[in-house]
């Protein structure tokens, strides 16, 4: 739900005022209604033009709604009644603890009257499973041991047939399988499944298949459910469990309101019993966290759409101004006559306002509905582009009525206030001139209006300087002053000079040293402001300086008959500077946004490919065991031999990994992490890059060493047992991939590492932060002896460099099927695939943005077409004159097309130039180190060409219509 109160209130105020005024002056209202009804096509075009902005706003909101819905639903399906999980998870594995914790917690929570309606113990073990009869594998499978007697509050287990079952119904060796795993293994009731655990394996029989719901859908895993007591024996955890689920009172969704209270109660019970904070299980607010993430993500996406859409929305506003100025011009003489017969200026403004109010309400209403359609289109593309069903997500289009209402309200307000301003300006006309259709003269002295606008702008600028700690105000401050001075001096200095100087000033300011400071958390708003100002500056310069340039084109560009055609086509836009500026601005803004997106896309792609060696360390494949089980060296070499993959492998390094709690400096609570003891092969062969690196270290003997190359940092690990390197997530993620986990460290930090088994502490100094942040290899990298010597519950990880041309997938599969026979479940990470996914996802987001902006481009083109249609009507009589004095039909048509082509060309050039310049500025601040500056010329040229051709096509029909104007009728027009 969005808060629509304020917006609706404003709309209500506006419309009450309008309606009261209309009731008092029904004549004026009737006049406005007649004006609308008289020319239906024109009214349709106006509505079409006006609704663009609203449609963009509403579509961005609807996309946000859908995403929030999808991800929220996902979280609710994942966790069902579960609100909190108590347990310590390290690299996807839960560490076990005594089941007396459960007894104590459930009793104490009950006696404290904590707002919970369920608490249940369990064991979850990630395993590889095989259906031997079918020869099918599934991994990883969560084998969950629960006791249905304790499951009150979490719902019972329901079979696919719909009957409810319980673990008490199971006998030794019987399990339930959820649909997900049953499908993977083609298992049916009665199927025999082999579970690989520890060096041994055992067989169970499927008693029934459970629907993927509730506990049988926990975290959307492949799930096997067995009796808790059987799990304790099978997994050698007598008297122990490894996770406790808690359900707050309330249903699936509103239970989270008690999360904070329940978490606090659990922690205080643990404190009261004196359980060691470093080693006791942690409370994870899984549902709260999941919902927060879902909302945060959809808000981010909506925001990105808004930001990129902002340029198109501003373009839409320029279109509104353009349309109303044209409407006013067209009706000038009519309005002049109304004034001559006694209507006051106020009444005239009012009648125009009524019309504007009707138009804005109508167009905002249609616009929000069209936005709904656009939104569903974007969502459709989203579902095609992102195969999120792989992650168990279902794309369902969803929107909140409140979003449409808000979009409507914003649309009405923007349109209405634009109309108010325009009509007020227009009503200030001179009666005689208006009747005779003459343009208003250029005043020789500064008018009161100009003076007040100038003053307002200057005051705004001063206020903005005062508020400069707010980034958009900071950026807008000097440009506001410049604009104020420009308007104030309009009649004193040649406007060409002030506009040019002003334009240069604005551009210089925007790009200058005061540009967005890098430490700002939210760069988007200043970015949009900067973009708008940049385009404004460029349009000012171009509009006021194109005359000499265009005159030169006319002089040398065309000989013979083409000469007058070129001349008329260039003179019209030059002499209507305001309208041309608006149209140019509209076109440029959209091209600007498209250009920026293309540039980001190009550079992101290059940044990622530049980072591949640093991310992968030169390894093609990483494999690790799924349980706390180290493969001993003898088993390893035997397995390698048997699997027959040795000949495909260039080198193998290995690491011994152990789950630990990391205590960063200044923290009191540990963060679950992993400690990687890496062997000498890895130390000497890896190509991992560093984001940050210390410049020296002291070895075991206290001797000082300089660090000059990344290799020095790795050899340092061999020289000392107190040095560590940490993966890239600890630095807070990269531009390419967001950070995982909560651990944030800096070079030089001294961290304590706590063993979950013994509670023993060990200290390490962080020597460097790696570039790589691949899933599965997050950790603190240290000397292998440190891990092997101090920890027992470890597992093994292997890093493979493969021979050229070898399929990593093939090697991975061979290793897996060999080692499972020895009782080692292996998980593999195929580096290229993971990186490919990262690149693809980033690429797809940008593709989606371009599609969205494509819609913006259609807006721009439609806007230009509307303006063209108006121009043809407006100039009907002049077309008649041209035809009379010798313009052929073709000359008329070409003249119109040339005019529009120039606008499209200049718009594209301004937009692309500004885009490149701003992108360069952003690049030089944030991306210089990760990628060279790339201008995707080909792509930009293609976009400009498409835009140009589409514009010419869209305006071809009015141009042809102009050329077909019968001269006699045209000359008679409006006489």
């Amino acid at each position, binding site marked *: 739900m969005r808060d629509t109160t304020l917006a609706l209130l404003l709309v209500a105020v506006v419309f009450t005022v309008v309606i009261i005024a209309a009731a008092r002056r029904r004549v004026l209202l009737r006049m406005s209604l007649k004006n609308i009804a008289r020319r239906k096509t024109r009214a349709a075009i106006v509505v079409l033009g006006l609704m663009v902005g609203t449609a963009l706003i509403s579509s961005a909101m609807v996309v946000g709604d859908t995403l929030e819905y999808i991800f929220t639903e996902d979280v609710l399906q994942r966790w069902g009644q579960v609100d909190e999980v108590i347990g310590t998870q390290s690299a996807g594995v839960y560490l076990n603890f005594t089941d007396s914790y459960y007894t104590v917690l459930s009793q104490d929570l009950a006696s404290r009257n904590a707002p919970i309606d369920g608490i249940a113990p369990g064991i979850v073990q990630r395993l590889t499973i095989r259906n031997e009869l079918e020869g099918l594998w599934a991994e990883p499978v969560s084998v969950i041991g629960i006791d249905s007697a304790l499951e009150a509050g979490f719902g019972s287990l329901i079979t696919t047939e719909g009957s409810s079952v319980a673990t008490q119904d199971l006998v030794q060796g019987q399990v339930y399988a959820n649909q997900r795993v049953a499908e993977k293994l083609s298992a049916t009731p009665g199927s025999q499944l082999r579970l690989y655990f520890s060096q041994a394996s055992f067989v169970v029989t499927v008693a029934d298949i459970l629907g993927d719901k509730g506990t049988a859908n926990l975290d959307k895993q492949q799930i096997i459910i067995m009796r808790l007591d059987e799990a304790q024996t099978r997994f050698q955890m007598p008297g122990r469990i490894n996770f406790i689920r808690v359900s707050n009172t309330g249903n699936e969704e509103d239970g989270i309101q008690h999360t904070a209270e329940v978490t606090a109660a659990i922690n205080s019970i643990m404190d009261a019993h004196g359980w060691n904070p470093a080693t006791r299980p942690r409370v994870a607010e899984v549902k709260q966290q999941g919902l927060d993430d879902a909302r945060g993500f959809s808000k981010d996406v909506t925001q990105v759409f808004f930001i990129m859409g902002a340029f198109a929305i501003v373009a839409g506003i320029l279109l509104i101004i353009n349309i109303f100025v044209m409407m006013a011009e067209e009706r000038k003489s009519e309005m002049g006559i109304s004034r001559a017969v006694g209507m006051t200026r106020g009444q005239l403004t009012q009648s125009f306002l009524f019309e504007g109010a009707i138009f804005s309400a109508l167009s905002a209403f249609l616009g929000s509905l069209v936005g709904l359609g656009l939104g569903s289109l974007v969502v459709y593309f989203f579902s095609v582009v992102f195969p999120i069903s792989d992650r168990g997500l279902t794309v369902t289009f969803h929107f909140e009525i409140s979003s449409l209402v808000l979009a409507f309200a914003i649309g009405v307000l923007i349109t209405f206030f634009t109309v108010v301003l325009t009509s007020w300006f227009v009503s200030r006309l001179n009666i005689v001139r208006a009747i005779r259709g*003459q*343009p208003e*003269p250029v005043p020789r002295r500064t008018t009161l209006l100009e003076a007040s606008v100038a003053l307002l702008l200057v005051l705004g600028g001063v206020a903005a300087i005062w508020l400069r700690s707010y980034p958009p105000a900071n950026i807008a401050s000097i440009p506001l002053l410049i604009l104020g001075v420009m308007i104030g001096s309009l009649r004193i200095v040649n406007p060409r000079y002030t506009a040019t100087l002003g334009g240069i000033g604005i551009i210089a300011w925007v790009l200058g040293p005061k540009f967005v400071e890098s430490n700002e958390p939210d760069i988007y708003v200043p970015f949009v402001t900067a973009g708008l100002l940049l385009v404004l500056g460029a349009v000012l310069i171009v509009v006021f300086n194109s005359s000499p340039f265009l005159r030169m084109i006319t*002089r040398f560009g065309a000989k*013979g*008959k083409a*000469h*007058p055609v070129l*001349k*008329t086509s260039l*003179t*019209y836009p*030059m*002499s*209507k500077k305001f309208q041309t500026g608006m149209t140019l601005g509209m076109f440029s803004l959209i091209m600007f946004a498209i250009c920026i997106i293309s540039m980001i896309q190009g550079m992101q792609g290059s940044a990622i490919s530049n980072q591949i060696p640093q991310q992968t360390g030169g390894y093609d494949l990483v494999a690790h065991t799924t349980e706390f089980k180290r493969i001993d060296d003898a088993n390893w070499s035997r397995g390698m031999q048997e699997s027959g993959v040795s000949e495909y492998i260039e080198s193998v390094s290995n690491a011994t990994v152990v789950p630990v709690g990391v205590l960063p400096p200044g923290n009191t609570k540990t963060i679950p992490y992993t400690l990687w003891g890496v062997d000498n092969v890895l130390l000497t062969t890896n190509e991992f890059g560093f984001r940050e690196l210390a410049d020296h270290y002291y070895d075991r003997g206290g001797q000082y060493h300089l660090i000059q190359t990344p290799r020095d940092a790795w050899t340092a690990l061999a020289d000392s047992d107190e040095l560590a390197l940490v993966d890239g997530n600890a630095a807070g993620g990269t531009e390419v991939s967001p950070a995982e986990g909560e651990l944030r460290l800096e070079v030089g930090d001294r961290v304590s590492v706590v063993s979950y088994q013994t509670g023993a502490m060990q200290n390490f100094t962080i020597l460097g932060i790696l570039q790589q942040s691949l899933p599965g290899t997050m950790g603190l990298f240290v000397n292998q002896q440190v891990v092997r010597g101090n920890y027992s519950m470890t597992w093994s990880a292997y890093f493979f460099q493969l021979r050229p041309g070898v399929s990593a997938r093939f090697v991975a599969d061979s290793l897996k099927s060999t080692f499972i026979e020895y009782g080692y479940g292996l998980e593999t990470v195929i580096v290229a695939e993971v990186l490919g996914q990262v690149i693809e996802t980033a690429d797809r987001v940008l593709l989606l943005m371009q599609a969205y902006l494509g819609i913006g481009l259609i807006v721009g083109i439609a806007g230009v077409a509307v303006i063209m249609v108006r121009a043809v009507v407006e100039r009907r*009589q*002049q077309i*008649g*004159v*041209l*035809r*009379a*004095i*010798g*313009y*052929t*039909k073709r*000359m008329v048509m070409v003249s119109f097309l040339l005019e529009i082509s120039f606008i499209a060309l200049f718009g594209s050039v301004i937009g692309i130039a500004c885009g490149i310049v701003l992108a360069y500025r952003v690049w030089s601040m944030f991306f210089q180190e990760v990628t060279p500056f790339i201008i995707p010329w080909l792509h930009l040229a293609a976009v400009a060409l498409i835009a140009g051709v589409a514009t010419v096509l869209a305006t071809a029909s009015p141009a042809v219509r102009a050329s077909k104007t*019968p*001269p*006699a*009728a045209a*000359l*008679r027009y409006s*006489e």
Partner: protein
Amino acid sequence: MKPEPLVRAVAAEKVYESGPLSVRALQGINLEILPGEMVAIMGPSGCGKTTLLNCFSGLDELTSGEVYVDGKSLSSMTDKQKTEYRAKRMGFIFQSYNLLPVLTAVENVELPLLIVGHPPKQARATAMMIIEQMGMKGWEQHKPSELSAGQQQRAAIARALVNSPAIVWADEPTGNLDTDTSRQIMQLLKQLNVGNRQTFVVVTHDPAVSEWANRILKMRDGRIVEDTAAK
């Protein structure tokens, strides 16, 4: 020997169809206009004067009958040929001047020359000469909106005459001007008529204007009801 007529109309009919109504704006007009004539067309509002002008100059098409210009039938010409003919041989003056508002006076005047492909420099020189003749020197760089009504009409006349047309069609050229300015304008036209032997067809309500003509046509309901040579 009688000279070849510049414009000859035979049984010219023009019917405007607008919905169920049809207006017979020209009803069987037979007319010859000779080179060097200055013809005034008079008649009440709505009698078909403008229609005649439009149809005889090729801006509009007759419903039936035929108009020959320089001996060639207008209906046999393509739109392009008619346009070219207008560009080279005809000039137009309108009641509301109809200068292009975005061009300066001199740019308006030189436009017909550019259309027929004169080099810009030469066109500018010729236009300046005519502007000077019209007594408009010093105003050539002004836009129409910055000129008085009389000045605008002078510029419009200059535009009509710049390519030395054989015939100039003028529809109420003095309709928006005061008596004094009217007289000056008509004097100008007369000078050109006599001096260059250019043909003028002038539609007017104003008897003072028709006095400058050497032939007066009176129209009523789409017919020519009187054709008199002036003294």
